[in-house]
Structures are given as C-alpha cells and as structure tokens.
C-alpha cells in the first residue's frame, strides 16, 4: 500500500493506492493519529484502492467517527470492487461517497 498525502491548512487529502488489509491498515491508522488533529475536511481518494479488508474498514470507520466530531469526511472515486464491500457492510449509509 502507498499513500499520497496533501495537507492544506485544515484540509487533508489522502490517496490510498493498493491494498488496505490487516497488514497495511496499521500504517494508515498511525498516519491518521498523527495528522487528523485540527483537520476539518478529510477526503479519501480511493481511485487506486483495489482491496479493503475488515481491518481497513475499521480504520475508515474510526476516521469517520473522528470527523463527525471535528468536521466532515468524504470518500471519492471508489472502484467497483471496493464499492461492493461498502455496500455489503452497510458503509454506504455511514460514509459520504462521491
């Protein structure tokens, strides 16, 4: 997994490339722990996310919970295969997907 991060004041854009699974999720989690403070607008670009597992979903859920309190979060460019996971797990009701 690779991450491309762009921070602009209170805006944070994260592009996740590759696979977000139990091996790579801790990396994203740690990054969010460090970066989310004071962020009011968080965007995940998932155009190149090809796989997401339970562990990855937990990190996304936890980011959503954080952003519910301090601003807003959206998820963009979700690929079909990941979208299928979001649909089946009910994440479509929780996330703002564009």
């Amino acid at each position: 997994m690779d991450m491309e991060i762009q921070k602009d004041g209170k805006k944070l854009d994260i592009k996740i490339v590759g696979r977000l699974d139990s091996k790579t999720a801790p990396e994203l989690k740690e990054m969010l722990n460090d970066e989310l403070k004071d962020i009011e607008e968080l965007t995940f670009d998932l155009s190149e996310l090809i796989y997401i597992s339970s562990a990855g979903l937990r990190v996304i859920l936890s980011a959503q919970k954080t952003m519910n309190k301090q601003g807003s979060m959206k998820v963009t460019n979700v690929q079909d295969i990941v979208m299928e996971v979001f649909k089946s797990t009910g994440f479509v009701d929780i996330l703002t997907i564009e």
Partner: protein
Amino acid sequence: MDSIKIDMSELSLTEQFYLKCISEGAKVRESLDVMTQDPMKYNTELLMKIIEDNKETEYGQKYDFANIKSIEDYQNKVPITDYDNYVDYIRRMTENGEKNLLTSYEIVHYAKSSGTMGNPKRIPASSLNKEINFKYNYAYLFNLFAEKVGIDWIKYPFLNLTETSISTLPSGDTYGSISGKIMGEFGDQLPDFVTSPIEALKPKPKTDIRYIHARFALINPDIPFTVTSFVSLFLETLRYIKRNWELLVKDIENGTIDESIKMPKEVRESLLGKIEPMPERAEELRQIFKEGFDEPTVPKIWPKMSLLIGCGSGGFSNYIKKIKEFTGPDFNFAFIGLTASEGIFSLFVELNNPDSMLIPDSMFYEFLPLVNYGDYSKVVTLDQLEEGKEYEVITTNLSGFYRYRMKDVIRCIGMHNHTPIIEFLYRLDQCLSLAGEKINEEKLRKAAYKTENEFGFDLIDFSVYADSTSSPMKYVYLMEIEDLPDDVTKENLQERLNENLCGTDPLLFNKMEKGIIGKTELRFLQPETYLLYKELKVARGCSPAQVKPPRILREEEDISFFNVLLYDDLEQDGGLDMEEIILKSDSENLDSIMLKIEEYLEDKNIAMKSKLQLELIIEEIFVNICNYSYEKEGEIKIQYCLLEDPLRIIVNFIDNGMEFNPLNKAVPDLTLNADERDIGGLGLTIVRKNADRLDYKYENNQNILTIEKIF
C-alpha cells in the same frame, strides 16, 4: 458470619452499602427458602396482586382485570403478547409521559434491550422491578459471597466493566442498561465503589475504554471482585493487559498516558489529574508480567480477587474456561441467571453453579411445552414443569407486560426445594432449520468448540447461516480464527466440523446421509471482522456492552456483511499467485496461449463444454486486443490462475495500448448485416454470454481486462 456490633457511622458509604446488602441478603435467602418450598402459592399470589393493582390501567380495563379471580380467568381473558403489542403504549409513555396505560406502578427507567438487530427496544422497568433487582442481584449475591470469603473486602473498590451510560427520554425518564441505572444512583460516591473512573463508566466517544479500565485496575492491588455484563468482557480486558502490559506498566511508572491511547483531549487532561507516578507498583507489575502468562496472573496482580459476577450460562462456558487460564482454578463465579430487560427470570442457586431457579415473587411464569409450539392453549404453570422437557417462556412482570413472549427457550433440569431449576437453551428466533431438523445456538456452539479443541486453534468467534439457495442446501459456518497449526488445512477443519455438527443432531445426520442436506461448509473471516461488526453496531447507536456476537445469521444484510469479509489467499499473500505469459500482439500467437491453458487445466476434471467456452472467451478477447489496442504491434500479458470453492479460473489480459474499454461497447444490433456490424461488439457478446464475470480497468497506462469463468 458472626454478628458483630458495628458503628455504622464510622464506616464509609461503600462499607455501609455492602453491609446493608449482606444483612438484607440474609432475609432474602430466608424468604427464598420458604417460597421455594411452595412456589406455586407465591407465584399465584404475585399474579393476583398484579391484576388487582392494575385493574384501573388502560390495559387492565381493556382486558377486564377487575373480573379476573383465578389463573384460568386470566388465561381466558388476556391474550399472549409480544413487544409489538406494547409499542404504541410505550411510545405514549416515553414521549408524552402518559401514565396508567400499562401499569399503575411507577416506571423509573426504560431498559435498552440487547441482542436484536435494528432499533433497540425500550422496556419499561417499575420501582418494584428495581427492588427485585436489588434483592436478588445485590443483597442475595453479596450475602453468599460474604459467607464464602468473609467481609474483609467491603472497603475496597471493585472492577466494574458494565456500562453506566444513561440517556434521558422526552418524558424525562432514563433509558439505558438496568445495571447502569443502579450504578448511576451511587452518584458522587461511585469512585469509592469502583476502580474505573467516570471517564470509562460514562465514556465519551472515541475514548479507549479498555485502556482506562485496565490502567486503573492494575494500580489497585486490592480489588476483590469484577462485575461485567457478559463474562467475555472480562476476558477481553485480561487479554488486553496481556498484549499491552509494557505500555501500561510504563504509564503507571511515569504517571503518564501514552500518546497512542485514543481519547479526547479533555478526557486525557481530566484523567491525568487523577494519576501520579507509581514506580513501586509498576516494578511489582513488571516482575509479574515478565514471568509470562503461562501461570495464572490474576492472583499475582490482584491477590484478593476471587469472584466474577456476570452472565455466564450457555454460550459463555467456553469463556469461563479461558478466564480460568488467567485466574487459576480457585476463582468464584456468580452467574447471574437469566436476567432480561423484562425482569429477573431466574437466580443462581449457589456460587459457581450455573444452575438457576425460578423466583416465585419476581414475575408470574407460564410455559409452553415446545412440543406444542404455537398452540398457546397448552401453556402450563411452574408447578407443571417436567424435568428434561423444553419450554417457551411467557411472563407477566411487574412493569406492565402481560403474558409476554420473551422468545427464550429453557429446559427444566431439576428442582431446588420444590422450585424448578432451569437452563437457558436458546432464543426462539435463533434456531435454524433446512429440512425439519432444529439447529439451535447450543448445537452450533458445541460443534465449533469441539473442533477448536481438537485442532488447537483459537476461535475468536463464529456465525452460521442456513443456505437454502445452494443445491443441496447446507449450513455455512463463518469463523474468525487465530493460530491455526501449520499442518491443518481448511478442508481438515471443514470435514471435522461437519462431523461434529452431525453429532449434535441425529436428524441432521440422517438428512445428510440421504443427500437432502449437503455437507457443512466452512469459510474463514478476515482478522478483526468481529471487532468491526461490534464497532459498526456501536456507530449505529448500540451500547458497546450490549453487542453480542451474532451466532445465527438470518437477515440477508448480515449474511452478505460476513461473506464480503472472507479471508482468502488475497488477504494472505497480498495478491493472487498467477501464472503469466507475455506474447506479441499477433493473432498467430493464439495457439500458444491455448496450449498453455490446456496444460494448466489438465487433470483438473473440467467438463469439455466449459473448456470450449473458456477457449472461445480467450480467443475473442485476445484477437480483439491484437486488432484494436496497438497501432502497430505491442505486448499482451496474460495472467491466469485457478481458485477453489467454486472451482473457477481468473484470467487477466493486460496491454499497454491506448485506453479502450471493450465493456462500454453497446450490445450489437444483430439486425444489421455483417459489413455494417461492429466486429468487436459481436465478439464481446460471445464473451459476455460465456464468462461469469467481466471487469475492466485502466491502471498505470495499462488496459486490464479480467474475466472469471466458473467450471
């Protein structure tokens, strides 16, 4: 206990509370001894009192309580109900504060019921219900505990893992778990009773509660007992300590809270105000943990801890075994019996005994023998229960529910004095059947744990559903496991699991022999799937202490939730292990691909027809890429691999040509003549018809077309 004169005014409130419990408890035990000798007399008296007290309520008038003089009258006049019958009343009570609808008793609280999907129910609890709760969940229990270990512990706070979050309804009543309500009433004194600070008992969102519970428990060596809703929460806490002791000890030593521990800033600040460096205790703990966890650690960390109070029947027996690995064998359990939001249904007979007996003055009991399922003219009262038989439970409680189906199934397993001892079997709405057999949670659990023990892996949790769409129909187990021994394959486990499940139910075995039901299938779930399930429930408003693992899946949405989170080779290896060939984009090369695939599929027992269909797909796509993708010539990479369950092949076609998604092409107009037709379009129709999945993506300047063909 000796009777000693104690000057109550010199005691702390904690000590006063426990002493009150212990002395009240003596009376409760005496009165139970009397009542259990003739339970029907006291249970009938209870019903008549409820009827008399509630004859002026809206519900009482509707069903003519005033003219009910016997149990028979009651059964003739008042219908069997479930929650839906009360929804409108409860809405009026909670939103408008209307009184005297279901009950004349003062409603002091609304309990959030657990276990079901969707919106949690609001179950009213009256002041009488609360008294009963105090008598049996506190007074009785602490009297028995004091009898066993004396009263040296009463001045020490205990570890409380139950949730005390309580919210307020529009009517001004409180809403939340019953235990939370009682805890809440300790108010400012709560810190004297329990080790965990308010930050863990009434947690703010995004607070790592496990850390706080563990941290504040570890610094206190004198904890005498632990209270939890489900015993699994205690196990979770112990496992958390095992995994994170270094961090915990370091924080205790320095009086810090590690940066990695999640909590809102204000929570962190307020907690930091409550702690200071404790190097001595930290050193003590470090020595304990350095010795490892092979020996029981609880007696070393908390030498006085000798009791766990929690719900322990049925599904939790496996947790008990695992808890004892931490506590050693000399540890006491108080299994709080069958306690529901509707009231206390049964009470443990003694410590460490999972048997629980009916309580003649807690609720009025009726039972429907399961053999008469659905025919409520066949209900019996508690004096007619027969040992070994199974019953559906119907209760009339002290909080406005009359002849209410709790949807629980119990078995009568004996008598305490003349009062039935019962064992909780399963929830009625949690029973699976494909062809007449009844597979309940108990059987599913037995088969799962037996398999776990036989192979020595760690079963985190499991769920099962009945797949009636497959042919033949079958049961599907979904398991999240850890530490699977290297020499064990999924097929080994699946085979044995199926045998173990058959062992629990002869009818299932019989149907499988006849081929009516197929062999049980096992699927592995990804790591952290049950954690995710729990967190999602919490995100949707369930209270964390109330989320139980869903052992039986019925709803389509639950089934697809777990099925989309399967653990497969992808998760393990970071990608499929694929065969690969690279060819020039020349349709002459078609034969060499075909040869390779042919070789690859040899000995795989695949029908000729399927092979031909696959060849057709590959041919169409390959030729299509050769013709359209490159202006002159380029390379085409072909990756392929076989997957099991069901047997299928995945083939990727990758080229560096111009971006071109063949799947976007419209379905060809077959009415046009050959010259006018788009050739690629027609080929695609053949591909679509024969493949089971088609995906296209453009990535890193590559066209990637994936096809999947199930054999």
